């Protein structure tokens, strides 16, 4: 009898929302804590030290020296510039193309469901397959790009696209845009479907052209979604690694060497763990502002729920 009351008391305690809530979320939080939060702090600590695996006798706490060195490191600054360029142009194209495609797919036509479903394809592709695929398309000797452009008489001879800094940059961005645009399309399409038809009817009655109703009705209503898509894709642009690692390897002449590649080379090739960690942190500061904007807008939604 005594045991049954203690058992039910235990059950009662376990059914208390506060205790149960913590108990149920603890395993997930523990996993996230150990793989994300602890390394995040650990990395910050590492970034304040000299920690070269090749010279362990010189390990020391050096404060902000790594960060100061980074600001005068031409290879790092070059990679930062390349990353900002890569992300900005990617976002710009992804938004322009994404809105255009979404507007078309929002019209009535036969096979609309099928075409909308296709948008999932680039999104679902493993990014490494995307990289290998475009590398093959851009191949100088047998690539589809050269074949297509010569057959269309745009160029006369096969070009070594990836050896030219400018075309290499453009083509890497293009490969990224192909994979990432569907995300914008899907978001914008969902937003378009929430706009009531009455609004367009009313503007048609008032004699507005389609372009005018796009500018004055559609655009303002999808703007919040566009903001979120742009922020996320800017942040993801900074995280791009395998696409550039595979397609150009950072070349030619480091023009496509993104910061992620620089961090990788510094840490795992030169074995400078402290300097690499500082590089990763300093770069992340730049995406911190878009990240905060994104989280604040998300927070508003959480509070509303």
């Amino acid at each position, binding site marked *: 009898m005594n045991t049954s009351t203690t058992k039910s008391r235990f059950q009662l305690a376990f059914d208390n929302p506060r205790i149960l809530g913590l108990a149920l979320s603890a395993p997930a939080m523990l996993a996230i804590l150990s*793989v*994300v939060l602890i*390394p995040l702090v650990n990395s910050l600590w590492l970034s304040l030290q000299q920690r070269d695996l090749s010279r362990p006798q010189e390990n020391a706490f050096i404060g902000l020296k790594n960060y100061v060195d980074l600001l005068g490191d031409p290879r790092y600054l070059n990679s930062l510039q390349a990353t900002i360029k890569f992300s900005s142009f990617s976002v710009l194209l992804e938004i322009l193309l994404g809105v255009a495609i979404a507007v078309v797919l929002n019209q009535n036509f036969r096979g609309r469901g099928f075409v909308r479903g296709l948008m999932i394809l680039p999104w*679902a592709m*493993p990014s490494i397959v995307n990289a290998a695929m*475009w590398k093959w398309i851009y191949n100088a000797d047998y690539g589809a790009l050269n074949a297509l452009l010569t057959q269309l008489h745009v160029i006369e001879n096969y070009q070594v696209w990836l050896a030219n800094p400018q075309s290499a940059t453009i083509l890497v961005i293009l490969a990224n845009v192909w994979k990432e645009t569907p995300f914008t399309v*899907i*978001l914008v399409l969902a937003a378009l479907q929430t706009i009531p038809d009455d609004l367009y009817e009313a503007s048609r009655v008032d004699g507005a052209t389609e372009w005018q109703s796009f500018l004055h009705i559609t655009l303002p209503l999808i703007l919040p979604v566009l903001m979120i898509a742009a922020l996320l894709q800017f942040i993801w642009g*900074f995280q791009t690694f395998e696409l550039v690692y595979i397609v150009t390897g950072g070349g030619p002449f480091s023009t496509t060497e993104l910061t992620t590649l620089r961090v990788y080379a510094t840490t795992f090739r030169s074995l400078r763990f402290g300097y690499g960690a500082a590089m990763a942190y300093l770069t992340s500061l730049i*995406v911190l502002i878009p990240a905060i904007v994104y989280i604040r807008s998300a927070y508003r939604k959480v509070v509303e729920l």
Partner: protein
Amino acid sequence: MRRTLKPLFLYLAVAGIVIWTIAPYLWLIISSLSWKIDLLTVPLRWIPTRLTLENYYSLFFDRGGESVNVQLFIHSLGNSSVIALFTTTICLILGVLAAYAIARLRFKGSNFLVLGMMAIQLVPPIILVVPLYVIMRQMDLLDKRIGLILVNTSIVLPLVIWLMRGYFASIPTDLEDAARIDGCTHLGALMRVILPLSGPGLVSVMIFAFIASWNEYLYAFIFTNVDAKTLPVLIGEFSTKLGLEYLRIAAAGVLASLPPVLLALAFQRFIIRGLTAGAVK
């Protein structure tokens, strides 16, 4: 005039979109089914006159002296499958419990946790890679499948919790309240009332988790060497090392992309709902 032109423009635009979306992937598939000699001709013929499965065979069966190590390919395929399936299962269990707690139990700090889940998804993996490498080396988890399962689970969990929480929040509380009045505990209500109603949410979360783990490259690239090497890492090695084996890389790429692509196409409604859950309300 306008009436006939508009549908024409529309269908041209649609055709352009379809071509832009499938042409690169279609070319990868065609390449993977072609004889090398046919693809080396100039001018290139876009539709091959003869097809072959040779590039696929050579990934699975040793043909003597070929540069792709057959054992390695089959081994990586197995690693990717095991890691993705375990990651999906663990994410589902831990994610559902945590999401239920956050959505329904409103304990101290639950709002903060939701926000934390959002924020964590924005942390650049490259920051975590260096300290994780050090930690995993100390714990002897490098080049082990269990190591990657742990890492992938933790990376995917925030998204799973975020999506599941949204799904639970959309289920009316009435049924649950009725079950509670009948003497059901919170956990009992979750098992008997909420989960049976959450089929679509569970499916979408499983697909997201599977695709994220299957496609993951950076962590697998850094944390594995031989034993736990995944398919994406192997494809990366193929395309940086085997300069001329394009068609075999294409075949491996098609195989690696089939599970996520087919899953996503088959369950596109779930995916679209999941992708838009955070952004469109």
